[in-house]
């Protein structure tokens, strides 16, 4: 075993290389964790973290007593998560299966290039595009007007807001999300597949018994990550469109924190809600991972 001094002499360059990254992570991931202390303070910006008075659990009151504004944000968040797990999550799997079965390699490449692209656009651009297509003065309605048909009000209608943001998520990320399923599908053993065909297995049976085992670990992994993120739904996407539909339909936990803290100056309550959200998020990932282990899957990390 080398002495500590020898190891320092040998590895100091490596430590020096790690320094900028480590500093950034400490300053902007670990240091802010300490800032959560203001969840227990009556935080006054001019007094700062060091001098603001402590108020115990007062800031957690909206959460503990079920304040309607908070509950609305919580319920919206959960509904959006549910919609996205049920309707959005399976789409890339289907698309990957379709792409994988496409015969021409060139056609597959071209389609992939086109379908991946929206992932790289910002939410501002995606929201702008949707408004230009479906807004009251947008392309769809201009065309309907010119054809003397009645127009659709889609943008700015609270009842349709969740449908709207779900379609945006589908448009932006379905293509890109196939990438990891396609990687898993590329490892399907052709000999095994041929044997299944020779044995007369139907397409559905081949999918179930041959293909699925290859992509199941990936599905479980992504589902765990999605569950861990249950309480975070499209913050940038929603904040951009909130003014059009109002808080009733669009407030989620993250926008609640932003609107009450940064905009409204109720720092303590906002930090308290943010803190609870963070803790529940970590607990959800760990819990979902244990569940995956219990079901015999590998999960995010091996046991």
């Amino acid at each position, binding site marked *: 075993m080398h002495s500590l001094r020898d190891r320092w002499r040998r590895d100091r360059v490596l430590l020096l*290389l790690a320094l900028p990254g480590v500093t950034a992570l400490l300053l902007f991931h670990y240091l802010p964790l300490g*800032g959560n202390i203001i969840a227990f303070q009556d935080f006054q910006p001019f007094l700062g973290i060091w001098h603001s008075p402590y108020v115990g659990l007062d800031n957690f009151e909206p959460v503990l007593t079920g304040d309607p504004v908070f509950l609305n944000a919580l319920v919206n968040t959960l509904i959006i998560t549910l919609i996205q797990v049920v309707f959005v999550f399976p789409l890339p799997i289907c698309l990957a299966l379709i792409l994988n079965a496409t015969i021409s390699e060139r056609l597959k490449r071209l389609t992939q290039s086109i379908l991946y692209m929206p992932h790289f656009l910002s939410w501002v651009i995606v929201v702008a595009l949707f408004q230009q297509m479906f807004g009251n003065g947008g392309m769809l309605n201009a065309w309907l007007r010119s054809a003397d048909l009645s127009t659709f009000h889609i943008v700015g209608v609270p009842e349709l807001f969740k449908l709207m943001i779900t379609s945006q998520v589908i448009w932006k990320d379905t293509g890109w999300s196939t990438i990891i399923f396609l990687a898993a599908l590329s490892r399907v053993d052709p000999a095994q597949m041929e044997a299944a065909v020779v044995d007369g297995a139907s397409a559905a049976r081949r999918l179930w018994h041959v293909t699925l085992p290859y992509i199941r670990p990936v599905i479980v992994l992504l589902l765990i990550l999605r569950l861990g993120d249950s309480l975070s739904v499209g913050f940038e996407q929603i904040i951009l469109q909130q003014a059009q539909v109002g808080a009733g339909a669009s407030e989620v936990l993250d926008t609640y924190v932003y609107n009450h803290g940064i905009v409204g100056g109720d720092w303590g309550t906002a930090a308290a809600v943010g803190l609870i959200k963070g803790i529940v998020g970590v607990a959800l990932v760990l819990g979902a991972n244990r569940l995956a282990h219990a079901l015999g899957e590998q999960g995010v990390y091996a046991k």
Partner: protein
Amino acid sequence: MGEPSKLGFGARGLVLGLGCLAVLVPFWAVLMTSIASPEEINRAGGFVLWTNEPTLDSYRAVLSGGIVTRALLVSAGITVVGTALSLVSTIALAYALSRPGSLLQKPILLMTVFTLLFNPGIIPMYLTVKQLGLLDSYLALILPVLVNAFNVIVMRAFFQEIPRELRESAYMDGAGEMRILLRIVLPLSKAVVSVIGLFYAVAYWNAFFSAMLYLQSSEKWPLQLVLRTYVVNNTPIGSDQLSSNLENLPPQISVQMAILVISVLPILFIYPFIQKHFAKGLMVGAVKG
């Protein structure tokens, strides 16, 4: 594979074709509207899908030195500087972590991975940036997102795929760590460096909320904030904002669409160059890592 089924083939083709159209049509409409003449736009009542009298007036109006031009330069600057800083610190950290058994390697790796599990929250982040005196500074858009742990892990996995013998023989020949990193590891890692570089560049170019949160003065706005104000929120944009010398400003909608095109163009431009590395660069890290 499997028996050829005409119906299945047709259905698959239809799904893929519709998917591609759903992506392409909005871009086409935006592009055409940005170059259509005012008369055509009037006739169509907004969007046009084809123009016979293309004009670059709206681009001229937008790029002649007003708020959009300035925002474009700001976004370009942040993207170039940010991507360079992020790549250097990510490569350096990933390389240090790719050497199991070196001093402090384990705790630093744990510390890096752990940041994937939690998010400090909006309020504490804001207060931290404020405490560090970075409010209203461009550094606030770069330093908090300087290294992304996921990118570090992907790059580290890629570095570890490089045969040890290459590194060890260079070490025997007296090369130091820096030399090994620059001369041996990096030249073999072009794929992963391009892909991670693209991820960082896209993130910097697209950053909207951090700019809204940390920048107070509108002179400092990057393109995404201009886009939000004048396209999403539909705030009228006139000669005051554009400081344009054109006699007649082009129609509002073609100015808006020109801003949209300008903000998408850089991404469309670098995308094909990097795309060929996707499979190679991302898969090694994501699937094996």
